């Protein structure tokens, strides 16, 4: 009996000494996985969801094209535009853009370049087809339509 009493008398505290370690571990995880936003996206991006997604293995080979209505219609208008890196480019500038992107890759990887198209759902197919034709012209035939995973509740 007395034994039990003694225990209950002592103040109960959760040891928090290991808390910083745990937090540090989380911190390191996020520091390592973080990719700082390289480009500021200037177009609306509400990407339609899909089910049959494939994950790309080699991230180095992927370059992005953003397509959609500009976020600032008073400056850029309401027609969908193509954004590469930090600026809008014209459809006929795509070939040149692909070539500069290819130059950044090593010789063997050049033909494996993958263009990831991030397209807003309100975009019409016309501009997409034009982009595809330009990409064929530039011999960047691997493309991926970026899409997040469909959630089950809809």
């Amino acid at each position, binding site marked *: 009996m007395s034994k039990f009493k003694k225990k209950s008398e002592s103040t109960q505290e959760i040891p928090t000494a290991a808390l910083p370690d745990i937090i540090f571990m989380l911190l390191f995880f996020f520091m390592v996985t973080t990719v700082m936003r390289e480009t500021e996206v200037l177009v609306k991006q509400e990407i339609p969801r*899909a089910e049959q997604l494939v994950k790309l293995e080699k991230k180095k080979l992927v370059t992005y094209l953003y397509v959609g209505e500009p976020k600032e219609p008073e400056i850029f208008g309401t027609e969908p535009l193509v954004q590469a890196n930090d600026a809008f480019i014209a459809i006929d500038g795509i070939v040149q853009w692909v070539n500069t992107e290819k130059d950044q890759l090593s010789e063997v990887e050049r033909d494996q370049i993958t263009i990831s198209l991030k397209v807003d759902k309100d975009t*019409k197919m016309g501009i997409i087809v034009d982009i595809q034709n330009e990409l064929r012209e530039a*011999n960047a*035939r691997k493309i991926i339509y*970026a*899409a997040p995973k469909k959630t089950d509740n809809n």
Partner: protein
Amino acid sequence: MARSKNRGGQEVNAGSMADIAFLLLIFFLVTTQIATNKGLTLLLPPKQDEEEPEPVKQQERNIFKIQVNSLNKLLVEGETLDDPALIGDMVYDFILNFGNISDVEKGPTGEKVSDRQTYESLPSTMKAYINNSLRSDKSSDGPNAAIVSLKADRGSSYEIFIQILDQLNAAYNRVYGERVGLTDEEFRKLNRNDPRDLDLYERARSGIPKAISIAEPSKVGG
């Protein structure tokens, strides 16, 4: 007084360490974007040389035609369709139709496979399904010949295009998966860096090329 302090041992007050780490943690949490390199892949056809002759016209029954007009209405094999979610099953039946099994070997050099070999390699449940409900002479001759053509009007929306493309990929993945005894999801998640998975992947795909053709839309709107 001073002595008693020394006896207690000198310790740096680490109580606020957690707070500092928390602050940093929250900063990284907010700025992190987990890279989303996921999507629907597509291989564009090589650019056409003007000197090269037009490719040989395929027979009508070997092409599964999907058309979308500017009002996002679907025309599948000449008939209107309201729900894009139905396309997957139709394409699945189309690929596996084996209407006229040929012995002609096709494919990249070194791994030529004929439709008959493909058919023989299928599991018995699939063979039974094909023999019972497919083998129509109005649909494709075999997976080597089958082409899915998707033609979207310039005015149709990207959203419906992705829906259809998703369905087409679903149909192919289902075929590939079932062929090696996996579900379509398991097939999609095969890790191609793992030799065992790669072998399954190659086995599933041999003889059944993923022939999705995005046709050039007509300039006239619907």
